């Protein structure tokens, strides 16, 4: 297999799906002529024409609303919101319309659409262009939520997302577009389920999106002293936690790593579940490592310091297993 990038794997997923099914359309700001703010949709306008690759005005609520109507009437829209930070403009269409239509209408009207967007830090894009808002989507029944961390998942999760009968929020990470890797012939795990990215007996770390890579770096540095099992959650709503709970029952320890503001985060949900389901197996409380409870500052040094990195993960992981305190906790 040849290597490709996360960006191109996403592009290939869109291309393959569009070639297979003429009902698949793309719509969003700059998805056509410009090729996508992060280059994901480059060339697709030429391939499929302006009726299927639709450059929209800067009208986020309208874009999501239009995608909903297209989905209700038989198309399979993949709408794009350029930054997940703009979720606040579209949460009504997403949470009150897309997520609830099937339910409110007694099962008659599904909304098979994908909302692609990207989030996260790393580009000094400041407080309104660097957030991680997946917790809002996780708290919304009726939505599905996927966040790919690997090149292969970029492809397979997006293909799978486009096959769902219900709305899927698909959040890419701006720091991963140039990540290189291979697209496996089969998905690393079935849609909806986590993938174990590294086996270990001492500690379970649950994570997703870009933090997977920081975690794997930390895990590599910790071995063989501490053997970490790394679980990539991939799909957060609904969250299938079976694999995670099995792992924690084996290791007795759990750390959850996210980039989002910690309070009220996905990490909090997972910590709550782990305690509920694994209480008698736990040697230590599940701990959360997340973003600081602050808006993202623009200054590169501050931005970096505001979210976890491999070093911090390593320090906390080591403590959980060996009780060797990090310098800042000594």
């Amino acid at each position, binding site marked *: 297999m040849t290597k490709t990038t996360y960006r191109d794997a996403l592009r290939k997923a869109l291309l393959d799906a569009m070639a297979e099914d003429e009902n698949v*359309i793309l*719509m969003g700001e700059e998805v056509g002529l410009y090729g996508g703010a992060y280059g994901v949709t480059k060339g697709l306008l030429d391939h499929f024409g302006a*009726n*299927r690759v*639709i450059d*929209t*005005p800067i*009208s986020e*609520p*309208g874009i*999501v*609303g*239009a*995608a*909903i*109507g*297209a*989905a*209700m*009437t*038989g*198309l399979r*829209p993949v709408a794009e919101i350029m930054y997940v930070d703009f979720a606040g403009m579209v949460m*009504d*269409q997403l949470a*009150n*319309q897309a997520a609830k*239509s*099937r*339910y*409110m*209408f*007694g*099962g*008659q*009207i*599904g909304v098979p659409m994908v909302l692609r967007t990207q989030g996260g830090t790393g580009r000094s894009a400041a407080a309104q262009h660097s957030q991680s808002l997946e917790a809002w989507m996780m708290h919304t*029944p*009726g939505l*599905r939520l996927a966040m790919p961390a690997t090149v292969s998942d970029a492809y397979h999760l997006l293909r799978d997302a486009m096959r*769902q*009968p*219900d709305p899927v929020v698909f959040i890419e990470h701006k720091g991963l577009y140039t990540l290189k890797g291979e697209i496996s012939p089969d998905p690393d795990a079935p849609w909806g389920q986590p993938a174990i990215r590294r086996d270990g007996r001492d500690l379970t770390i649950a994570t997703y999106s870009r933090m997977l890579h920081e975690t794997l770096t930390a895990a590599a540095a910790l071995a063989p002293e501490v053997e970490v099992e790394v679980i990539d959650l991939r799909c957060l709503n*609904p969250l299938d936690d079976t694999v995670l709970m099995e792992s924690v029952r084996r290791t007795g320890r759990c750390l959850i790593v996210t980039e989002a503001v910690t309070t009220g985060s996905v990490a909090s949900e997972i910590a709550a579940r782990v305690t*509920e*389901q694994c*209480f*008698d197996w736990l040697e230590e409380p599940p701990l959360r490592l997340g973003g600081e409870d602050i808006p993202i500052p623009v200054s590169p040094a501050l931005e970096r310091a505001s979210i976890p990195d491999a070093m911090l993960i390593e320090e906390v992981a080591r403590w959980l297993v060996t009780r060797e305190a990090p310098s800042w906790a000594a």
Partner: protein
Amino acid sequence: MTLANDAPLSRYRTMRRIRTFEERVGELFLKGESAGSMLHLSIGEEAVVGLTDHMKTGDTFTTHHRGHGIFLARGADPMRMLAEIAGREAGYCRGKGGSMHIADRGLGHLGANAIVGGGIPHIVGAGITARNTANQAISVAFFGDGAMSQGILYEAMNMAALWKLPVVFCCINNQYGMGTRVDRSAGKQAFPARAEAFGLNAVRADGADVETVHNDTQAVMEGARDGHPGFVEIDAYRFHGHARMDKSPYRTPEEEAAGRDRDPLIMARTTLDDEAALNTIDAEVTEEMDAAMAGAIAAPVPATDTMFQDVYDPTTPAPQPQRARLASVLEELN
């Protein structure tokens, strides 16, 4: 009789069905059989039938919270509507949606909405589907004057104009959004001018006369089918309070009397001038709605565990009930 082929008489019948239906909704509430009190009657707005009569099988639409009449005009079964409003399993949405969330995909109803403006952009998507599949359908969004203040309306209008979609935005201006008369919500009340500024064909029609509405909206509706999106304002009056609990203390009896004088049913009766035929219709409609009412009230409420159904597509797992989650936690711990 040949009433069925007589369009104005048929429109009268539809308007009468709406009026009588809405009266039954009020009764349902008084009987304590409705699910809640958020019931918004479209009495006074029946002339929308003049517009819906331009719609065809396959056309789609979305409505606001005051959409019973529109849905009836598009073919709804009043029993299933009342059952839904009463929160019964036999309702259009199995008792999940209620008055403000009624829909029937089969009849092209993509959904009533309790978010002012919430359903408007959906017709843009339906318009894209129509364009891409060349299915000849138009899609119509129905909403109130209150939604003229929702930004999403203008986003949707702009997209429709930009992409030349077969859609129509229909504002039923009943002069009030709750207690706010339109002159207290609109910086300028020339709504068609707003639509024109975005590139739409636009017209205002007198909602006191269903035939005027029919005639005056024809060009806009036909234009939409040809890819010239349109806007229609139907000028009407909300006869009753905003919802069932509202007695409209914010308006004067004089104003109400004048508003109720603009009654599209009375106007139609005067124009049609066929007392016998009209009375026959009225009697038939009463009978129909009585039967619907009886059927709805007799219908059983949904079983409790149906609440977990239809959150997601039934081919995928339903959410785990809380008691099941807790039971498995407790079991592990025991």
